[in-house]
C-alpha cells in the first residue's frame, strides 16, 4: 500500500498516528486482559481519563484548523463541543426509558420534576441513534455556518470575531442554564444508563468508547491534514497571512472561511459527543468562555498551525491539569495563567516549533 504524498511528507503526523494505533490496541489489552493486580493493569478510571484527553485533543485539532491555518481565533469552540455533547446526551437520556427516578416512559426526570406534560418537539427523534449521531454533526455545523456566513461576509475579523464568538458561547451558556430551555438547566443531562444497549459504566463499553475516540482523533487529524494539503488549504494559509490579498486575487474568502469554520465546528461536535458518554454528564458549564480559551491555549502550547502540536498540547496541558488540581489545587490557575503568558511571550510557535528549530539547528 502506498501512502499519499501529503501524508508521507508528514513525519510528525505519522508518529502521531502510530502512537494512536499503539494506545488504541494497548489500552484495551492492559485494561481488559491484564489481571487487576498486575502492575501494568490500567484501571477503568485511567481509560476514561485517557479517552477524555483524546476528545480534548480532537477539539484542539478543530481549533488549530481555524486558528493556525485560517487565522480565526475562535473563543467559542467550546460552544460547538457542548452542542455536540448535548445532542448525544439527549440520545443517552432517551435510552434511560423507565429506569429514571420517576420512571416516566417518555419524559426525562428533570421534565417530570418541572411538571412538563409532553416531550418538547426538539427532543423528538433523539431516541434513534442515527438521528442523534447526525445531529451531532448538523447542529454545531449549522450554527457555525450561519454564524460564520454572516460574520465573514460582513468582514468581521481579528479580535472582533474573537469577542463575538465569546459572546456566542456566553449567550448559549446563559440560555442552557434556563430550565425553560428543556435541557435540564443547571444540572444538565446525566444519570445515563446505556448506549446502543450496552451498559455505559461497563469496562467493555468504556474501552470501546476509548477506541472510538482514538479513531475519531486519527480520522479528524487525517481529514484536517488532507484539507490543508489541498489547494483550498493553501488558500486558507493565504487568507491567514493576508486576507485582503487573497480577496484581490479572486478567491471567495468568505466562502472558504465559512466552509472550514463549519467543518471545524463539526469536528468539535464529534469530540463533544464522544466526551459525554465517557464522563457521564453534560451541563451548561461546558459553554463557559474559559473552556474555549483553554482549548486555544492547548493549541498555543503545542504549536499552532501544526495540527500535531494541538494534540500534544491538549494532552500535556490536560495531564498537568489532572495532576495539579489533584495535588496542588491552589496552584492550577497560577500555572495555567502563567502558561498563557509564557507561551505567548516566549514560545510563539509552541513545543513543536521548539523541536523543529532545534532539529534545524543540529541539521
Amino acid at each position, binding site marked *: 500500500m502506498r501512502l499519499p504524498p501529503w501524508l508521507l511528507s508528514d513525519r510528525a503526523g505519522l508518529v502521531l498516528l502510530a502512537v494512536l494505533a499503539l494506545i488504541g490496541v494497548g489500552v484495551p489489552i492492559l485494561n481488559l486482559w491484564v489481571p487487576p493486580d498486575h502492575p501494568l493493569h490500567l484501571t477503568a478510571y485511567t481509560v476514561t481519563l485517557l479517552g477524555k484527553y483524546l476528545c480534548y485533543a480532537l477539539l484542539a485539532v478543530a481549533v488549530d484548523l481555524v486558528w493556525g491555518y485560517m487565522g480565526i481565533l475562535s473563543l467559542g469552540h467550546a460552544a460547538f463541543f457542548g452542542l455536540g455533547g448535548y445532542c448525544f446526551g439527549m440520545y443517552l437520556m432517551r435510552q434511560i426509558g423507565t429506569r429514571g427516578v420517576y420512571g416516566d416512559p417518555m419524559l426525562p426526570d428533570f421534565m417530570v420534576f418541572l411538571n412538563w406534560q409532553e416531550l418538547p418537539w426538539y427532543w423528538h427523534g433523539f431516541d434513534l441513534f442515527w438521528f442523534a449521531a447526525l445531529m451531532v454533526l448538523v447542529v454545531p455545523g449549522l450554527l457555525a455556518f450561519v454564524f460564520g456566513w454572516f460574520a465573514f461576509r460582513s468582514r468581521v475579523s481579528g479580535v472582533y470575531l474573537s469577542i463575538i464568538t465569546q459572546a456566542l458561547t456566553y*449567550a448559549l451558556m446563559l*440560555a442552557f442554564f434556563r430550565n425553560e430551555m428543556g435541557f435540564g438547566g443547571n444540572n444538565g443531562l446525566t444519570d445515563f444508563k446505556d448506549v446502543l444497549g450496552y451498559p455505559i459504566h461497563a469496562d467493555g463499553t468504556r474501552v470501546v468508547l476509548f477506541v472510538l475516540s482514538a479513531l475519531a482523533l486519527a480520522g479528524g487529524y487525517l481529514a484536517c491534514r488532507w484539507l490543508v494539503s489541498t489547494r483550498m488549504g493553501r488558500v486558507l494559509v493565504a487568507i491567514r497571512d493576508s486576507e485582503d490579498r487573497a480577496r484581490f486575487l479572486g478567491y471567495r474568502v468568505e466562502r472558504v472561511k465559512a466552509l472550514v469554520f463549519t467543518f471545524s465546528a463539526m469536528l468539535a461536535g464529534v469530540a463533544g459527543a464522544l466526551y459525554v458518554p465517557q464522563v457521564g454528564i453534560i451541563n451548561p458549564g461546558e459553554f463557559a468562555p474559559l473552556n474555549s480559551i483553554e482549548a486555544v*491555549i492547548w493549541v498555543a502550547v503545542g504549536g499552532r498551525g501544526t495540527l500535531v502540536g494541538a494534540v500534544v498540547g491538549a494532552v500535556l496541558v490536560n495531564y498537568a491539569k489532572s495532576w495539579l488540581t489533584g495535588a496542588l489545587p*491552589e496552584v492550577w490557575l497560577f500555572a495555567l*495563567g502563567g502558561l498563557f503568558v509564557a507561551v*505567548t511571550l516566549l514560545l510563539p510557535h509552541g513545543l513543536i516549533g521548539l523541536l523543529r528549530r532545534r532539529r534545524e539547528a543540529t541539521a
Partner: protein
Amino acid sequence: MPSRTLIRAGFLTLALALLALFGASLARAAADDEEVRATLAQLRDADFDGKTELIEKLVTLNHSRVAAILQALSDSRLYFQEDPERIVIGSGDGAEIAIEDAVSGEALGQAGKRGLDRITANNRLRSLIENRLAGLGLASADPQQRKAAVEAFLRNPDPVGAAPLRARLEVETDTGIKELLALALALADLASDDATVRAKAATALGGQMQTEIRGPLTRMAAEDSDPAAREAARIALTRTEFRLQMLGWAETLFFGLSLGSVLILAAIGLAVTFGVMGVINMAHGELMMLGAYTTWLVQQWLPVNWSLPVAVPLAFLVAALVGIAIERGIIRFLYGRPLETLLATFGVSLILQQAVRSIFSPLNRSVASPDWMSGTILLGPLEVTLNRLVIVGFCIAVFAVLWLALQRTRLGLEVRAVAQNRAMARAMGVRSARVDALTFGLGSGIAGVAGVALSQLTNVGPNLGQSYIVDSFMVVVFGGVGNLWGTLVAGLSLGVANKLLEPWSGAVLAKILVLVFLILFIQKRPRGLFPQRGRAAEV
C-alpha cells in the same frame, strides 16, 4: 401595629403643638372650661352613639384642650377618676400611671389604675376622631400641619367632616394644600347622594395614584347605581392607569439608566485601552475586582461613611499600578499581535483571580454601603434607591473627568496623537513607550474606580470581573472602538434595552436577547455605532 401607633404619637405631638398655637392666636374667646367638663362628664355613661354626638359637640366647643382629649379617647387613655370625681388623661404602663387633668392639662401625679375607669372607644369612634382632629388641624398657621390634616382626611374620608375642609378651601393660600383640599373634597363627594356630584368628583379624581383614591373609584366604577357616574369613574380610572403606566415606564427607564451607568463604568476603561490603544485586555474585569477589594480593605480600617472617598483614589492607584506593570511586563512585547495580547492578558486575569482567592479566600466579601447612600429618595412621583442614583452620578463624573483628561491635558493630547499616528507622534518628540504605559495605567485605574462602584451593587468575590468582561467588550464594540461618546451611548442604550426586555422575557433571556442582538449588529456594522473614519480605522 407600629405604624399605627406612630401615626397616633404623631397626632398627639401635633395636637399638643396646636394647643400652644390655639392659646396664642385664636381671636375668638375660648369656650370656658366648665362647658367642656360638663360635656366630658356625660361621656362615661353614654353609649357609642351618644359618644359620637358628644365628640361632635366637643369639636364645636373650640377649646384648646379638645385635640388632646380626643386623641386620648382614641388611644384609650381617657379615664374617669372616682375620687375625686374628674376626667383625667393617663400615660404610662403598670398599676400606677401618671395622670393629668383632661381640661386644664395640670399634672396630677400618680394614680392607681384601680380608681380609674377607662372611657372606651371603638374603631368607628377612632376614625371619627381622626377625621375631626384633622378638621382642627386645618386651622393651624403652620402649612405642614394643615397639609398633615388634609392627608389624614384623605386616609379617612367622611362626608360630614368635609364641611371644615370646604370652609378652609375658601381661605387657603398655599397652592399645594389647595390642590390637596380639592382632592379631599372630591373624595368626600364620591359618597354624595347626588349622582352628578359623584360623577364630577370622580372626574376630578382621575389620574390620582394613591390607593385611598383608587379604591373608592374602582368600587364606584363597578357598583354605582347611576350609569353616568359609573362611566365617569371608569374614565377617571383609565387616566389613573395611564399615569401609573407612565410611572412604570419612568421606573424602568431609571433602572435602565442605572444598569447602563454600571455598564459604562465597566466599559469606559476598556474604551481607553482597547478603543484608544487597540489593546485587548482580558484582565480588565480583574482590575475592577482589585478596585472592589481595595474598597473592602479600606473599610477594614476606616468607618464606612468615610471609606468611599478614600477608596476611589486608592483603587485608581492600585489598579493603575497593576495595569502599568502588565503593560511594561507583557503587553509591550506584543504590540501589533492583538490575538496574542488577548491570550496573555487572559492568563493575567487567571493569575489575578487565583491570587485574590489565595489571599482573601474564595468566599465573597461584603462591602458595606455608607449611610448617605442607603435608603430611597423621591424624584417627583418616582421613588428611587439612593445608591443607584449615586452611581449614575458617579458614572457621569468619571466620564466627564476622563473626557477632560483626554481633551484638555498634555497627556491626553499625547495619547490621542499616539493613537492616531504612532510614527508621526514619535517624530514630534512624544515618548510613545511612556505614553503607552500611562494610557494603559489610566484605563486600568478607571477599571479600579468602576470596581469601587460595583462593590456597592454586587458581591465582591474572585469572580466579580468575569461576569462583566463580555458585557464591557460588547459595549465598547457596539459604541464603536476609539470613541468615548459611543461608549456612553452604547452603555446607556444597552442598559435601557435590557431593562425594557426584562419584564417581558425575564432577566436571563433579556440578557441573551441583547447579546444576540449585538452579535447580529456587529455583523451588520462591524465598526460599531460611531465608527472611526479615516485611514487609522483601517488598521
